[in-house]
């Protein structure tokens, strides 16, 4: 549905987005993750047609953003990062204005506004000025704005930013509901949110895509290291190093600390996909060390994210 090729954006000499290639299918909920300044917002702004790419192409269905920007804009609903709306306008007036620009037929306008007011919980603030609204309510107005003409593609830049926990759950619920038939692309740096909502996660760092896939795929990505942490009593640092390194599959062993009561803490690193916990247990059983703690660090999205975005730094 959306085909992005070699998308690049320079701000003067600073390269914010560096040759991104991505294919987004219909009905996907795609989460765009990355540290601050990674190029998430810039990428989204180019997809919506607000920024002109320095190089590369964006194709939505059969339309190219260069040649048919209006057709693409008609298909996209966009919620910008800080929901900057006209502060003096009433919510109702603003949404009506948007409905006119987006070409909603006069007869459909009121039912549509009513539906969106219910969906986004705007009924009690329809006659307030936008400037008086709190951040969360402002965000909901933005969501109604983005969904005005029932767009095929919804692009949301940090949709849950500034919302209270209940609203976050609500918005996620809305996103999931919309995502059943529409394509949703949203950026966030809350990882649990991406994990809970997205079919597919794309992590970008310094303008480049560093990971792309669903949560399970990301966790399996092979260049990931398994880390096993052990706390042992009655053990010598050197013999622990030697014994554990001898186990097939363990790359290296690092001693972390030795406490006053004689507990030695080590970390074993492995890059094999095999579960090494049994081997380690059996090896230790043969010695007279006492296991105080034995744990395999789970690969969460958090650790993957940190690894991927740090590696390059």
């Amino acid at each position, binding site marked *: 549905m959306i085909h992005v090729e070699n998308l690049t954006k320079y701000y003067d000499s600073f390269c914010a987005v560096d040759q991104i290639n991505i294919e987004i299918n219909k009905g996907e909920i795609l989460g765009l993750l990355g540290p601050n300044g990674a190029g998430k917002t810039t990428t989204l702004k180019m997809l919506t*047609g607000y920024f002109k790419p320095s190089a590369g192409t964006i194709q939505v269905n059969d339309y190219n953003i260069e040649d048919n920007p209006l057709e693409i*804009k008609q298909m996209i609903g966009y919620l910008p990062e800080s929901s900057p709306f006209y502060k003096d306008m009433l919510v109702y007036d603003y949404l009506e204005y948007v409905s006119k620009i987006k070409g909603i037929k006069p007869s459909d306008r009121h039912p549509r506004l009513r539906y969106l007011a219910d969906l986004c919980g705007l009924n009690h603030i329809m006659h307030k000025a936008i400037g008086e609204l709190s951040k969360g309510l402002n965000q909901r107005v933005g969501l109604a704005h983005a969904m005005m003409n029932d767009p095929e593609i919804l692009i949301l830049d940090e949709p849950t930013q500034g919302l209270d926990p209940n609203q976050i759950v609500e918005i996620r619920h809305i996103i999931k509901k919309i995502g059943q038939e529409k394509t949703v692309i949203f950026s966030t740096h809350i990882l649990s949110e991406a994990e809970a909502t997205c079919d597919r996660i794309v992590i970008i760092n310094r303008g480049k895509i560093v990971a792309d896939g669903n949560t399970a795929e990301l966790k399996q990505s092979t260049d990931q290291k398994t880390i096993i942490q052990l706390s042992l009593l009655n053990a010598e640092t050197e013999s622990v190093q030697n014994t554990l390194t001898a186990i097939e599959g363990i790359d290296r062993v690092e001693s972390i600390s030795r406490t006053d009561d004689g507990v030695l803490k080590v970390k074993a690193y492995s890059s094999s996909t095999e579960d090494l916990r049994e081997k380690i247990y059996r090896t230790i059983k043969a010695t007279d060390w006492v296991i105080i703690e034995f744990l395999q660090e789970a690969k969460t999205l958090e650790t993957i994210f940190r690894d991927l975005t740090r590696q390059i730094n």
Partner: protein
Amino acid sequence: MWQFTHILKKELKDYFISPIAYIVISIFLIITGWFFFSTFFLYDQANMRGFFSLLPIIFAFVIPAITMRLFAEELNIGSYEILLTMPVTFSDIIIGKFAAGFIMTGAMLLPTLAYPISIAFIGDLDWGPVIGGYLGALLLGGTFSAIGVFASALTHNQIIAFILGAAICFVLTLIDKMLFFFPESILNIIEYLGADFHFRNVARGIIDSRDMIYFISVIFISLYSTYLALLRKE
């Protein structure tokens, strides 16, 4: 095609819901009324010449005050981004905003029609120059609105937009009064550039194509420059 009307309506609504429109119109009426009628009875002539000779210089700072917010405010609060991601073209946006400024100028002129009507009651008013004067005022208003829109598109700051717009309008108004500074060979060109010079021609009741071409081309150049200024922001 008609997308610009939505933007036009929205801008007009903004003008007339907020106090801006009423404040600007009042200030305009007080200034023109004061200056015009303070000398009107001394001259003891039933014409509007005094009013129309004042108009360009008053327009030169009132109209940029009307147009200063059109783009600068959107750029400042960031709603410009939303506007551009909606299905509208640059020309829809520019024409919509220019038309709003222009209609606002017309709304400002409308109450001044009370002057010729009351003069017609107390004296024998020649309507030809009055009609010409209003036609010229609309052309001049359109020209200054277009310049104001351009100034507004250059900056995030409304005050800068105002000063910039007023400066350009002042130069165009006053340039034909500074002719003695210029070498003789370019006098005609400088005179042709002056907005006041063309306004006076139209206000005398002479509809000359040269004056029309002047106003229309300044409007066109200003709006096209606005387009280029917006394009640069991408």
